[in-house]
Each structure stands twice: as C-alpha cells, then as structure tokens.
C-alpha cells in the first residue's frame, strides 16, 4: 500500500482484516498548505497520507492567486499570520533556491495616488517595523516614476519594499508534493473526505475512494476547512469565499513593469496591484468580492471591465497590449481576522482554516508550526536522517534558463529543441517529462501548470491539438 515510499520512510501499517491503510497522520487537502504540511511531517519518523479530493494537487485556490512572495510588512502585527508569513518568506525563498522553483526578487513599490494615501505611508512604515521588517523606505513622486516610468499620472509618493517578490504557485505546490512523496508520503488523489469516525486510537476517514485510518488528522482543506471542522463536531468558523479576478497581459507588456506595484491597503483588502509574473507577463488584480458559492471561480463582465479600466489608469500603455488570460480564485475568508489554527488533542485533530490571502508564502511556516503543535500535543517527532534531496523542478520561469535556450540540454536530448508551444516556448521534452513524473498531470490544465504549454497569447490556436495528443499518448503509455 505504501507505494512510492522512500527507503527508510515509516510505512503505513495494514491491519490484517479489511486491509484499511493506516497512517500516523492523514493530511486532508493537497493545496500548497497541505503539501507543505505533509512534506514537513514526512521529515520525521511518521507515516503520512495526503488525501486530496481532486485528481491533481494544487487544483483549487493554490493555482489561482496573485503569486506574490510576501514579506509580511503589511500584516496585522501580533497575529499568527504576521509571524508565519515572515517566517514563510524566509523558508520559501531558501526552498526555491534549493529546488529551482521560479522566484524573482523584484521588490515592491506601494504607490500613494492622493494626499490621504501619501499621509498613510509613515503609518505603513511603522507597521512594517512592528512586524520586524525594517527595510521599507518612503520615496517621493519623482522617485516613484524613476522606479516605474510607465505608471500613469497622479502618483504622490510611495513606499519601497525591497524584499517582496514573485513566485510560481504551481511549481511551489508541486515541489512540496513531490518532496512529500519522495519522503514516503502516500499521495492519494481522488479521495474526497466525506466523513470522519473518531475511534480510541485511530480516526477513520470515509473517502470517495474508500476508508483510510490515521492516528492524527490535519485539516488543510482550504474552502472546505469549516466542513471538515464540523465533521469533528466543532462550530468555530464559516468560510466565506472572497473572489479575486485577475487579468494577465501579453509578455510584450513585461517591459512596462519591473516590480510589484501595490496600492495603499484599505479596510476592504489589499487592493488591486500590478505585477510582473515569473512567466514574463504582467498581471492586474485581484478584485475582492464576498460570495456564497464556494465553486464560483468564474470571472464576471463587471469584474473584467473594472480591472481593465483600472489597468489603463495604473499603466496607460497596457491599453495597447493584448490580454492573454483572465481567471479568478477564491480566498477562504472567515469571520476571524487571523488564521484559524486549533489543536483538538482529544480527537487527535488539528485544524488549519482561514488561510486566505497569504497561504502561498506562509505554507512552509505552517508546516513547521503544525509539527511544533503536534509535538506539544505529545506526538513523538523523531527527525529522519535519511531524507532524499529536494526535487529539482523544471525551469519554467522566464528568469531561468529555459530548455529551448539551453544548448547543452538540447545537445543531450534533441526533444528540448522541439518547441511545441510556440508562444511560451515549451518543448516536447518538457511535456514528456511532466507526463512521466511521479505526479503526472491528469488533464490539459495539469500540463499547463507543469510546463506553461498552451497558456500563451494564442491560447492553443497553434499547439493545443499537439499537446492534447501528447497527453492522450502519455496517459496510454502510463497505463501500459
């Protein structure tokens, strides 16, 4: 049952009768948070299962966000979120270096567009210091335009935050999942947890693909975190999805924006930002709309039109550039202003809820935090000494050496010289590698998140059929 287990990893015990797989810890939800938690826990002498309802990891909020690597300079001081974002910034930065997750240290510029906003800058700088972040600098309008010459008129001043950056959310989640898997975690896709039966020593998780037993359960269910929490008998919070719509502009717009351009945050949220992406595009968003439907990941006419108007105000030259993509993601907001992280030692259950708008950055710190909480609750955590090296992730970032531009790789394997997706310059070799990976894509979206294929300006006009054919062949090959 413990397929994929690395030598030395604690393996699941299969009770004789019934053959229900049994683990020390089951993590529910394979978004970036669940993957980071599973990876962390699999670094100890524990058997770990990662249960995910969908057919791929990172297929919900973790794939549709703004992809900023936050310093936490603007978090609410004293909250768990503030602490974990700052710590997560450090951990993810180091991990990206070790694994090749696309990450660029672009810096951010928070821009004040009127006098009231300008007067708010010193307060923001003070808040950053309370959060332990000392490197903010207030600048005048002239400096704002020197840093970002393409900005529209009207800037009154700004706050430079040199350590904010941008990161690839897809590769981050995948790297953590592959690492967890290499450390022996049983990654179980297509396992929707429908109910829990808490026993004396184990909890039985009733899933859409059969039961799984675990001593401890960690909930990292994102938009479904409150449902899982209720299944354990709690009434602590309700998730209210807060939708964020985004526009992605053509790569030819990348020269217009050098760093993350933030608005002055308001009571309603962080506001609409303009940012380069690690794929070399420019992104504008997100909106913030409170909804009831947890599956409402569609964009709206008003949302898109509003963002387009906003884009042209922020960076007028964007009006001449094409849109490459539009999408929306749902933040798992709750009635609490901080993350909801609670240990229920009696039921051996740990809840991670309300990880709404910073979870990509804080994910690895949440992993550390979970391990510490479990240790406090009496779980014996013996660090393993035989861990495999972290995975080497494909360089899908524009700032990296992409295979199509790597003479040595092409010489070693001509498939890296066969460009299949022309707009994004994705090669046959990269699609092939993604299909052959230990966590292969289950559909075209999965191929796109692993390679960028079809996500360019033509949106598959040229390459869609070829990539689809490779996916089908790959699936057949896999079945053989």
């Amino acid at each position, binding site marked *: 049952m413990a397929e994929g287990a690395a030598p030395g990893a604690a393996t699941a015990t299969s009770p004789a009768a019934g053959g229900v797989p049994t683990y020390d810890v089951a993590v529910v939800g394979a978004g970036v948070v669940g993957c980071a938690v599973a990876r962390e826990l699999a670094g100890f002498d524990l058997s770990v299962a990662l249960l995910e309802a969908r057919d791929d990891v990172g297929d919900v909020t973790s794939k549709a966000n703004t992809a900023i690597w936050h310093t936490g300079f603007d978090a609410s001081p004293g909250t768990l979120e503030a602490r974990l974002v700052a710590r997560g910034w450090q951990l993810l930065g180091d991990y990206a270096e070790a694994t090749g997750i696309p990450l660029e240290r672009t810096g951010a510029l928070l821009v004040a567009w009127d006098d009231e906003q300008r007067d708010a800058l010193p307060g923001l700088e003070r808040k950053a210091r309370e959060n332990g972040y000392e490197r903010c600098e207030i600048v005048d309008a002239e400096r704002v335009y020197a840093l970002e010459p393409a900005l529209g008129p009207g800037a009154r001043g700004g706050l430079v935050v040199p350590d904010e950056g941008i990161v690839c959310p897809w590769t981050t989640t995948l790297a953590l999942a592959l690492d967890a898997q290499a450390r022996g975690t049983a990654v179980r896709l297509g396992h929707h947890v429908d109910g829990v039966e808490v026993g004396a020593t184990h909890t039985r998780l009733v899933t859409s693909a059969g039961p799984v037993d675990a001593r401890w359960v960690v909930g990292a269910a994102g938009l479904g975190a409150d449902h899982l929490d209720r299944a354990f008998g709690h009434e602590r919070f309700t998730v209210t999805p807060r939708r964020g719509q985004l526009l992605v502009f053509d790569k030819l717009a990348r020269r217009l924006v050098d760093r993350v351009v933030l608005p002055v945050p308001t009571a309603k949220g962080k506001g609409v930002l303009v940012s380069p992406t690690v794929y070399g595009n420019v992104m504008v968003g997100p909106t913030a709309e409170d909804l009831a439907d947890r599956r409402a990941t569609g964009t*709206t006419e008003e949302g898109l039109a509003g963002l387009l108007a906003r884009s042209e105000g922020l960076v007028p030259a964007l009006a001449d550039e094409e849109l490459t993509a539009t999408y929306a993601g749902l933040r798992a907001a709750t009635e609490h202003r901080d993350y909801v992280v609670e240990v229920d030692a009696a039921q051996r259950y740990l809840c991670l809820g309300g990880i709404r708008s910073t979870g990509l950055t804080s994910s690895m710190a949440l992993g550390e935090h979970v391990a510490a909480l479990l240790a406090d609750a009496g779980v014996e955590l013996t660090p393993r000494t035989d861990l495999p090296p972290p995975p080497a992730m494909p360089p899908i970032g524009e700032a990296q050496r992409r295979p199509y531009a790597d003479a040595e790789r092409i010489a070693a394997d*001509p498939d890296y010289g066969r460009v299949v997706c022309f707009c994004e310059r994705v090669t046959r070799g990269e699609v092939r590698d993604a299909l052959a990976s230990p966590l292969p894509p289950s559909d075209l979206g999965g191929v796109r998140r692993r390679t960028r294929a079809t996500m360019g300006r033509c949106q598959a006009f040229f390459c869609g059929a070829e990539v689809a054919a490779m996916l089908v062949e790959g699936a057949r090959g896999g079945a053989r």
Partner: protein
Amino acid sequence: MSGVARRTVDVAVVGSGPSGLVAARRLAAAGADVVVLEREAAPGGVPRHSAHTGYGLRDRHRLMTGPAYAARLAEEADAAGATLRTEATVTGWAGPRALAVTSPAGLEELDAGAVVLATGARERPRPARLVAGDRPMGVVTTGLLQQLVHLHDRLSASRAVVVGAELVSWSAVLTLREAGCATVLMTSEHDVAEAPAPLRWLGPRALGVPLATRTRVARILGRGRVEGVEVVDTRSGARSQVACDLVVFTGSWRAEGELARTAGLQVDPASGAPVVDTELRTSAPGVFAAGNLVHPVDTADVAALGGAHVADAVRRWLEAPALPPRGVALAAEAPLAWVAPTVLRPGDRPPPRRRLLAWSTEARALAAVRLTQDGREIARRRLPWAVSPGRVLRLPAGLLDAVDLAGGPVRLTLD
C-alpha cells in the same frame, strides 16, 4: 554563449506559409542562398491544416485544397534551391538581421543579408475578447479546431456555438460538420454577417445554421466542460442562454507579430502588424514583411503574391543595400481600423497586386473611400461593392496617384 552555432546566409525567411514559400522560391531561383525557418514539423503554414478547397485561385488560377496547395508551394521552393528547415523556431534577435533559432539540432544564430518576416496571423482567443465565466474545456479557435479535426482527428462535441460570421467562421462550420458536430448558433456583433453576400445568404440556408446578428457572447457557462453560452442582444440588452458543448471563437485576427515587436519595428497597434511601405520594407533596414503578418487577414493566394512582390524588393536590397528615400505616411481613420502598406515613397512600385488592403469596423451598403492630404481631399472613389467588417477591403492603388510624395501624411477613410 557557448554551444551556439553561427551561420550566415543571403536571406532568412521566417515562416513557411504561402508568402514565405513563394518569396523563398523566387529568391532562390534568382540565385540567392535562402533559408526558410518554420517552427512546425512540416512546411506550408495555415493551409496545411485547412482540408477544404478554396486555395490557389489568384496565384495558380485553379482551386486546390489547403494541404495540396501547401505541398505544391513547398515542393517548388525546395526545387528552386531554397533550404526549408522545419522544427526551427525563431525565438528572437541576435543582431539587426541575425535570428536566434532553436531546433532539435541545437541553438543557432543565423546572420542574414536580409530577413523576410512571414509569420502570419492568428485569431484572438477568448481572453483577448474579455468573455467572462469559468474556464471549462471546449473553448477553441478555428485554428485549433481545424488542427484537432484534420491533423489529429480528435473532437468530441455535438453542439457548437460559432462566435463570428467572417469567412473563416464558415470554414469552421464546415469543419464542424465534417466532424459530426452541429452548429447550433452563429453570432455576429454586427448588423449583418461579415461574410460576403453569397455566403451570407446561402450559408445559413444551405448549412442550416441559425445566425444571430447584433449579438455578443458575454459569458461561458459550465465548469469542467462547456455547457453553454450567455448571449446579449446588443440593441435591447436582452440576455439568453444557449446550450452547447463547444464554443469556437473565429476571426478577429491579429498579426503574429512578436518578432516584429522584439526587433523594435514600428507596429500598427490596431492590427499588430509591422508598418511597411509598398515594397514591403519594414522600419528596419534589410528587414521585410509579407503575407498575413502585414494584412491580418486575406486569402492565401494574396499572401503568396505578396511573397513574390517582396522577393524582388529583397533582391534589390541584396544588390545595393541602400536606405530608401523618405516617404509619406498613410493612415487609416475610423471606420477603417488599419490599412497596409502605410508608407509611400518616391520611386517605389505600387503595392502587391496594385491593391491597398484595409479593414473596416462597420458595414456599409454603399460606400466611397476618401483620401485627404494636408487638409485637402485628393481622391474619392465610389466602391462597387458593400463594405463589411471582418473581411479585408481591397482598394485599387490608383487612388494613390494623386498623393504628393513631398507632402504631409495622407488619411484614408470611408464616406
């Protein structure tokens, strides 16, 4: 950079569609050392994917299917001595006329005496049209549809909505029909469909396709797989939903102009096309452009004849690489979105086929074109046919006879 092969050549042609192949054939026949770089696995460009007939009328004086036409042009270029390289993607520039190329053979910098950009055009996909909704499977462009059906024989859909009513939209309807998929609705934002009158009248009747004019597709319905579209009547604002399992976004062409942009060429923001003169020179010395890249889009035969035209200009540049004389700019004004070519120089030939190509955003049953220069009307001509959006407008170059090549910019519009 290590591992990069460097080569020099007289002419590098980027793109092996009709325009690129014909340019290469003619230049090679005249003795030039010509390399055609094509990113796909076979030469031929868009006609290769377009199985129906309708190719070759103006250049070969007969009708052929797309693949037969593409194969013939490729054979002729090859026979004339041009080197056709496939799976060779031009990724950028290594110098003013030097191309960075990726192929299975490795990285290469190809330094050319002249470069012809013939990279074609593509349809605007859904995001560029700002259509709201989720991102389910089953949203394609005609280009993708035809590849799925003709090159890969892979389409599982039974009810399609075709967005747009241009010529290419009917091509999409035919392809759908061949694949056993019904077109349940065709939409056009215009008052009348964009396609020429015979198709406009015959199409809906012969093919049984309901056509909704003044209709905008506002939203895609469905999550995993398309379930329908929400359409808006642009006059009344009334909304309705149409069930379908495939949405085909057709037409609304844009030049495939990345290399033009990254070279820093002057580009027309309306079409994305590099600005060219009547010899098809771009704004960079020794860099030329032809085919749908400069007029997104016209038919393949027109692209091919543009290829022949540019070849002669390239030949003259190779013989004597001199900067052209100063010219006069020609600009399109509403309701015209763009015109090509847009630079008129003394001593240059008239444009290919003695035609100016333009694009209207409005339909006009009766129309006249008007040219003004330095505040004066210099030419006006009644058009014998109706003007329709979504279809290239071909204007006789004789209109330009009255232009003062020492004067100010010329404006072209419709009355």
